[in-house]
């Protein structure tokens, strides 16, 4: 089967400031098995925008043959995507990349999921899976301000949820790592996705003491490992491709 397909938009709605939730339907969903992977989207059939847009998978529903993505309408490509209506089609390539490994987690262990802004979505499928596995799940979700917050209630179904905003307009005032420290949250595993400063803070604080994984972001072209645009350097000096070996890497694996 081709890994490229026109998928139908089931629904699309705005869930926070410039943040959209889109549900797509099609057979590619049957190949989605792992949280933390992404798809690469061709927004239009015309040459502009030329490149696909990589967006992380937020939720997989193989029974309904649907998956959900949450994205920020920021550049021209995502703005165009946000104008699409249900029933329309978009061309999807995926699933791509290496997602979060959860096999090593023991049932009696506590897992903390840390999402920053548009890094929150992949943590949702994670929360679902870990909850199904029987683990205690804590979700620490960080945003700039209260108008940016999304999926708080959705996460509560599967996790103990803590919200942090930089301006203090909702929940804890400060960043996610400060929240973990202030509230003395204890855990065995940490999984993070968000801006580089957040990943760096997680690495500094927990890199030596905890087990876990971080999901990275980088400008991509092909999304399948061929163009070498989205590389990062590993601590052993070797280069890795964020789209292929990543976007998820072990805590401590990537030079930050």
């Amino acid at each position, binding site marked *: 089967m081709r890994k490229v397909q026109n998928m139908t938009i089931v629904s699309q709605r705005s869930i926070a400031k410039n943040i959209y939730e889109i549900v797509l339907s099609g057979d590619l969903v049957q190949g989605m098995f792992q949280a933390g992977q992404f798809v690469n989207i*061709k927004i239009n059939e015309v040459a502009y925008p030329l490149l696909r847009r990589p967006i992380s998978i937020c939720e997989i529903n193989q029974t309904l043959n649907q998956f959900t993505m949450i994205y920020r309408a920021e550049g021209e490509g995502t703005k165009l995507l946000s104008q699409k209506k249900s029933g329309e089609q978009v061309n999807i390539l995926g699933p791509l990349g290496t997602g979060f490994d959860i096999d090593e987690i023991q049932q009696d262990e506590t897992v903390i999921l840390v999402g920053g802004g548009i890094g929150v979505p992949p943590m949702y499928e994670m929360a679902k899976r870990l909850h199904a596995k029987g683990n205690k799940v804590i979700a620490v979700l960080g945003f700039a301000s209260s108008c940016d917050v999304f999926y708080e209630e959705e996460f509560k179904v599967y996790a103990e949820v803590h919200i942090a905003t930089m301006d203090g307009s909702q929940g804890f005032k400060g960043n996610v790592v400060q929240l973990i420290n202030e509230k003395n949250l204890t855990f065995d595993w940490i999984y993070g996705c968000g801006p580089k400063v957040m990943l760096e803070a997680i690495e500094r604080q927990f890199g030596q003491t905890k087990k876990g994984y971080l999901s990275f972001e980088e400008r991509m072209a092909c999304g399948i490992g061929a163009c*070498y645009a989205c590389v990062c350097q590993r601590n052993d000096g070797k280069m890795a491709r964020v789209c292929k070996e990543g976007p998820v890497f072990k805590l401590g694996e990537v030079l930050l």
Partner: protein
Amino acid sequence: MNRLAVELPGLSLKNPVIPASGCFGFGREFAEYYDLSRLGSIMIKAATDEARVGNPTPRVAETPGGMLNAIGLQNPGVDKIIEHELPFLEQYDLPIIANVAGKTLDEYVTVAKKISKAPNVKALEINISCPNVKEGGIAFGTDANVAAELTKAIKEVSSVPVYIKLSPNVTNVVEIAKAVESAGADGITMINTLLGMRFDMKTGKPILANGTGGLSGPAIKPVALRMIHDVYKAVNIPIIGMGGIETAEDVLEFFYAGASAVAVGTANFINPYACVDIIDRLPEVLDKYGFEKLSDATGFAHK
């Protein structure tokens, strides 16, 4: 009769569609999508003597109808390529075109000598046109005498035919083409990317960490066609044409301008099946424009 077959020095290709160097790695990623034996050939990612880590990120920026890249020739080095990558490609019915780069004439010669001995390498493509490295690359491709000297040196050591990859970032591409032809080049591949820049609107700084990058994609197609057209008139060695090819019609248009085969680059990033989709549609396009076989279309614009 295979209507798509083309014959070039060192290369008997079942079809003229070749993924362009730097856009296809060493084939492994695309082997997950389709049988690589369906391709005419592969121009593998540039090899240098030592491994290179390439440029800092961001390495790509989008532009209207195109993209800028500044990867910087990241590759594991020629020895690793011969040891790990070329043997992987031996399972496919596929002549390989090995792209050769270097900082110095000696490095080019060393790499060319080594890689031309690999059993499945049937031709070399000499990259004298990479705009994204500080030393070598384009420095060898913008001066006719330097390009000729390099061509001669590589011809002396190569076990297979040598194609020179020309840069569009020159005043007179015909002069360079004629110089490398006189120096013994068996063919020409053209065009490499056009040097460009984009700036971040908030910071005023270049988007690419390297500052400048090479423009590719459909935006450069007319530039490529014009240059191939001009070079075809001036030389008697075959041209492998590239620059923004996305469709089977594009392939035929490049043949009209003077190409004897084509390379597909950026289109692979948008549609991983781009090359096989083009191959599948080519017979239909030949019918539409009245060509019995594709090779009849080479230079049609000049007739």
